[in-house]
């Protein structure tokens, strides 16, 4: 098989790689905020339960979580395995990444000086207005570098979908590598991820720059 054919074949899986990536970003970013708020809840039970789930999600391999979400329903309830594996894959990725984002958000929220809340309260901002207008924009700026880190990792982590044979780019590459006994597909995959992350880096850098208008 020529290099060109390999690239073309693997490119066909690139759409699915992008689907995992964008859907995970789309779901995990807001979900992470919900998890962070639950984690910081004044209700001790809510916060303890959330904390427990975060330790599970961060303390076990993503690969295991992928397998659990994809095949768990079959082994547990005898339910069928999802025909479109994108669904369990995106669910597993979103939940896993939400746990990481939640901790990043929490760190960001807790780093905002209490004086910001007090000033807003005295000026008559409601709790919701204070969070949305005063706290959140400052949090976003502070956490951008950490979020970029996670997103760069996510690009590479999409390759883990091969464990449930979802036909994304890396899974195809791995199959070609096996059938052709060639290392070439892995190199191609490496270049794909690298270029993908160059773009991510550029975009995130631009967002960070846009937030640079104050200290």
């Amino acid at each position, binding site marked *: 098989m020529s290099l060109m054919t390999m690239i073309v074949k693997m490119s066909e899986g690139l759409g699915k790689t992008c689907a995992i990536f964008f859907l995970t970003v789309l779901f995990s970013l807001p979900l992470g905020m919900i998890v962070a708020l639950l984690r910081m809840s004044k209700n001790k039970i809510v916060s303890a339960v959330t904390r427990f789930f975060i330790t599970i999600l961060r303390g076990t391999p993503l690969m295991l979580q992928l397998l659990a979400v994809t095949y768990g329903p079959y082994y547990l309830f005898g339910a069928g395995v999802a025909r479109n594996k994108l669904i369990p894959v995106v669910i597993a990725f979103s939940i896993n990444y939400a746990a990481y984002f939640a901790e990043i958000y929490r760190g960001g929220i807790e780093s905002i*000086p209490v*004086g*910001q809340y*007090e*000033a*807003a*309260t*005295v*000026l*008559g*901002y409601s709790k919701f*207005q204070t969070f949305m*207008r*005063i706290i959140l*924009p*400052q949090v976003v*700026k502070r956490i951008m570098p950490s979020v970029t880190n996670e997103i760069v990792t996510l690009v590479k982590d999409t390759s883990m979908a091969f464990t449930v044979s979802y036909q994304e780019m890396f899974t195809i590459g791995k199959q070609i590598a096996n059938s052709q006994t060639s290392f070439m597909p892995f190199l191609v995959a490496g270049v794909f991820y690298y270029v993908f992350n160059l773009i991510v880096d550029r975009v995130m850098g631009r967002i960070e720059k846009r937030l640079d*208008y*104050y*200290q």
Partner: protein
Amino acid sequence: MAETTKNETTAILEIRALQKSFGALSVLKDISLDVEPGNVVSIIGPSGSGKSTLLRCATFLETADGGDILYDGQYAVKQGVYASKADLAKFRTRFGLVFQNFNLFPHYSVMKNISEAPLLHGQDKAEVQEYAMSLLKKMGLEGKENAYPCQLSGGQQQRVAIARALALKPEILFFDEPTSALDPELTGEVLKVIRQLAEEKMTMVVVTHEMPFARAVSNRVIFMDGGVIVEQGDPEAVFGDPQQERTKQFLRNYQR
């Protein structure tokens, strides 16, 4: 608003037998004070005397354990029981607070810092902006409306914070050590603005370590120590001829 009102008084702020403890530490023990319209009351005293806690209780940032707080004769707090959330929100529109550390919103321009709260309260945009501009002029900050707090000196930031508090047209303005975070050089410009407000008969309560300022500007000086008001009265009396040994000792230490 609050059902129980009391009309024989003209004080904007009345505090009666206010108590506050942090755990076992009693920070305010039975504090009472009135602030009449147009008056400037300075609160002096050593660190940990409860001055800031008193202001924080008056502005509902801390919850008092007992006593009364009345604005315009209406109970915000009656024997340690707070009015409803909605009523407290209405009481908040009556006062402003200027913090030691300014607490400006760093992601907002000067104009937005000043104008957002009145806009959220539903005031007309053009009027709010016009009033904000006039406040900036008064604060000596013309042309700074588009600057961000990080581009301003500490003294300028504090003056923006004063403008921000004034934008809501409060009946009474509280200052919690407004110059303690400033270089001596920048202290003067902030004190000048407060002095100007005093001349315009703005009702103010100022917690401060600036003794000459307190003496010159206040109608009344309160000396606090250990959570109680040790002495209060006319500034010339308190500074010139203090009656309590503790007051004398404190003022002596200050002059050294």
